[in-house]
């Protein structure tokens, strides 16, 4: 009796094990190039709308990046002001020289 139960149990395990293996192989072949998303939730970007993404980006930018940016336009304006000032001073005082 006990032997029969053991045999049935092994058969049952083999059946479900085989079934699981078949399903796994099926998915493996279907998504060979990528890991199935249901397994790792790799493709989750649709959860956040574009609008919310923009807001998030703005907040991160405001919080972490501000102050690190290089304002090229401002740099060039400063340089122009410097050149402008130089010519004004030079006009007032022809002997004025700048050693660079």
């Amino acid at each position, binding site marked *: 009796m006990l032997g029969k139960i053991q045999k049935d149990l092994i058969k049952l395990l083999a059946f479900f094990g085989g079934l699981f293996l078949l399903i796994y192989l099926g998915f493996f072949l279907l998504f060979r190039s*990528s890991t199935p998303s249901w397994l790792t*939730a*790799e*493709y*989750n*970007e649709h*959860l*956040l709308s*574009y609008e*919310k*993404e*923009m*807001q*998030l*980006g*703005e*907040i*991160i*930018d405001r*919080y*972490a*990046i501000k102050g*690190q*940016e*290089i304002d*090229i336009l401002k*740099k*060039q304006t400063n340089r122009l002001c410097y050149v402008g000032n130089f010519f004004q001073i030079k006009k007032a005082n022809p002997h004025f020289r700048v050693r660079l």
Partner: protein
Amino acid sequence: MWVISSRLKKQIRISEYDYKIKIIESEMINAFTIPGGRIYISKELILFCESPEQLAAVLAHEIAHVEKRHTVSRILKEFTISLLFSIISGADTVLLSELWKTTISSSFNRKQEQESDEYAMDLLEKSNISPRTIAAFFRKLNRENLDYDEKVEFLMSHPHNNSRIKRSLEYKTSKGFKPIPFDLDWKSIKEDL
């Protein structure tokens, strides 16, 4: 930057993003994206590029991360959607600090990097920039022994330089493709930085 980015942007037919590209002061050769189409390029990276085409190649790669929404996917791996919503609505500084750390420390996986490289090569071709520029950029990195160096942190998750050079050289451009160089005085642009 505007000249280079606008040539690339013109070729992205449909995009949800209004790109904002900024140059930041950093000692590292670095380029990164945060959600919402914001791309940051370090001054050091611009100085490292030998031509505007090389900078365009880096930019195209970052645009690919944005268009494929890799940045969002990366953040969503670490943060739940409700946590992100609470950041958007409340802008809690502690949460923001954690989010910022995640944004800069966690990297894209190799598949995302490869996907971005392919997108970038396609975008470069459409923009009349040779996709082989990617190879030129990585050759320079190799020459200066910067592969996986701490100075180029942003490359850590990227496929190895040599494989990227190979893929870039193997990329087949369509018949009649003719690269149009940027009409920029690259040397003086770099001096202006």
